[in-house]
């Protein structure tokens, strides 16, 4: 076994005595491995982030909406709630952009309105005050719940319960009293759902009155379920039921959207993108591997005499093979380890860039399995690409090797 130690030693010394050459050879592997590590860890971080910030919202409700040609009446919705035990209630959804008068300048806000159940659409809790209640909804009171960031932007502070916000939308001015503050949502939520970052929630009854709309003609509703497990099934069933009630069975006038499937879709897109970028990174690993092969061929040529000596002393073909495989494995393993470290640093850099660009905190995620797999894979590349040169060395006859 001692000779194995010597192979490692010889490989190490040989690499050390050709530092620049070995480094340039490793460079391909380093670039490949570091990009793979960075992509994997950021990809993992992304999907963690998405499931973390979205799945808390998912499951408690689903959305049913029409293409606008026929409204859904409250009677149909009442019947739906009655028919399906799992559906606990519904809320209309009316959302529009408005301009709010802020402390220094006008601020664009997104008004979302519904009934008191609309509170459950957002998983971020109410951190001050309360949500508007049923009586305020029934009386179409001009009250609102604003999110933390919005409070800061409009008033310059967070404790704004009891304050009034003046807003303009579609040429109509209105004033709403702040009754509650909601914790700020993650940036991804506004990124995914679009629109202004500030969210103002109001009773839909007030909005209907403001714009003179029919409170019984709904185009977009949320239906709440008792158990997240039922959300997907109910979204399908309720959609069919409502479509049937509107005489639109089998057409695509009525649609439903359930956040879990949205998350799944988003995750699969993310996985696809990650896989594609990985492929690109893998190509650079392949190129790095070819570099290893090239340098090993040079090494074999340079050390032909050494091979001859060892063979004439009685070294077996397989031990020459080992000697060179260990060397190429060591080169690419070293490159792999450096690549892992660099990839680790890169991923934090990317994370910082994402944060600076979108104020989203995506923490890169590493796990030991991933690192081991990458390290073994990079060593595997060395062995794979080192095989041909090593075989070439091992096959030399001692007399030919000594003559050179």
């Amino acid at each position, binding site marked *: 076994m001692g000779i194995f130690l010597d192979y490692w*030693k010889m490989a190490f010394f040989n690499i050390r*005595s050709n530092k620049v050459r070995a480094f340039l050879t490793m460079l391909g592997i380093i670039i490949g491995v570091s990009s793979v590590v960075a992509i994997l860890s950021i990809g993992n971080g992304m999907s963690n982030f998405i499931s973390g910030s979205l799945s808390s919202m998912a499951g408690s409700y689903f959305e049913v909406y029409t293409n606008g040609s026929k409204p859904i009446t409250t009677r149909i919705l009442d019947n739906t709630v009655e028919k399906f035990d799992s559906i606990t209630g519904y809320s209309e959804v009316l959302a529009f952009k408005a301009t709010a008068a802020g402390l220094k300048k006008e601020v664009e806000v997104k008004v979302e309105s519904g009934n008191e159940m609309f509170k459950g659409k957002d998983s971020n809790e109410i951190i001050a005050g309360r949500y508007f209640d049923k009586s305020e909804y029934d009386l179409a009171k001009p009250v609102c719940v604003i999110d933390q960031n919005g409070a800061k932007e409009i008033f310059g502070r967070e404790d704004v319960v009891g304050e009034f916000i003046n807003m303009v939308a579609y040429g109509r001015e209105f004033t709403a009293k702040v009754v509650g503050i909601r914790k700020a949502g993650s940036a991804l939520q506004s990124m995914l759902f679009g629109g202004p970052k500030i969210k103002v929630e109001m009773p839909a009854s007030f909005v209907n009155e403001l714009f003179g709309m029919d409170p019984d003609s709904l185009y977009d509703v949320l239906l709440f379920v008792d158990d997240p497990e039922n959300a997907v099934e109910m979204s399908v069933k309720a959609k069919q039921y409502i479509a049937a009630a509107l005489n639109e069975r089998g057409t695509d006038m009525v649609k439903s959207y359930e956040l879990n499937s949205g998350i799944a879709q988003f995750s699969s897109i993310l996985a696809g993108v990650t896989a594609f970028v990985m492929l690109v990174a893998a190509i650079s690993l392949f190129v790095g591997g070819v570099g290893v092969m090239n340098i090993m061929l040079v090494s074999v040529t340079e050390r032909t005499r050494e091979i001859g000596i060892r063979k004439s*002393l009685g070294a077996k073909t397989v031990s020459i093979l080992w000697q060179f495989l260990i060397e190429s494995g060591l080169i690419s393993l070293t490159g792999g380890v450096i690549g892992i470290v660099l990839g680790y640093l890169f991923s934090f850099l990317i994370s910082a860039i994402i944060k600076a660009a979108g104020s989203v905190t995506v923490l890169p995620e590493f796990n030991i399995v991933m690192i081991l797999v990458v390290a073994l894979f990079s060593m595997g590349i060395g062995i794979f690409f080192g095989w041909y040169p090593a075989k070439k060395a091992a096959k030399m006859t001692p007399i030919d090797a000594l003559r050179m």
Partner: protein
Amino acid sequence: MNNDFLEIKDLKKSFGTGEARQDVLRGMNFTVKKGEFCVLLGPSGSGKSTLLNIIGGIDTPDEGYVSINGDKLEEMNEKQLTMYRRKHLGYVFQMYNLIPNLNVKENIEVGAYLSDKPLDVEEVLTTLGLQNHKYKYPSQLSGGQQQRVSIGRAVVKNPDILMCDEPTGALDYKTSKEILALIEDCNKKFGSTVIMVTHNEAIKYIADHVIKLRDGVVRHNDINEKKISAFELEWYPWMWHSKM
């Protein structure tokens, strides 16, 4: 049965074809006894190195055979030849051929790993006077020191046959004598059969058995009854290429 250890029978070898064909060995015959110090003398081109390579199992003859202890090399396959080299042979090259990335001790260990019955590495280092240099690399050693390491690498295997290809060819007078004395020591101490190729005729005085080669055949095959030790040996540079 006689006690012939190594038998060379009708060995022929040529290189090239047609016009360029060159017969290097043209039917060579001799035997060497176990434990003998045998010197193969001959000018350049007399076939010494080719013969040594064939005995070493790294080259093959066109005709004839080499047998060791009754085993013919020609009948061995690649694996058996490797095992033969590993078990029976120690090689000392003219140009030392050490592995530059390994230090003295490690270079000798390369030989030790390849043997079933290696000598103690430390003992070999002491015998060769290399104890103080064992952690040096070949590039830090003089020619004589490098040749000692090369001898160490060969004898540590405790080989039956120690093959020396012009071991003093690149060394000065004084160092050459030291190296010869060492080989002589190994021959006595470890009982290895020594086959030394040289063109330095003076060396014949320290051998048990002197075989002179010329143009691919054995010209003289003498047993030296009055052998002297390497330290008694004297020669001068102008004698090196004296006529045979």
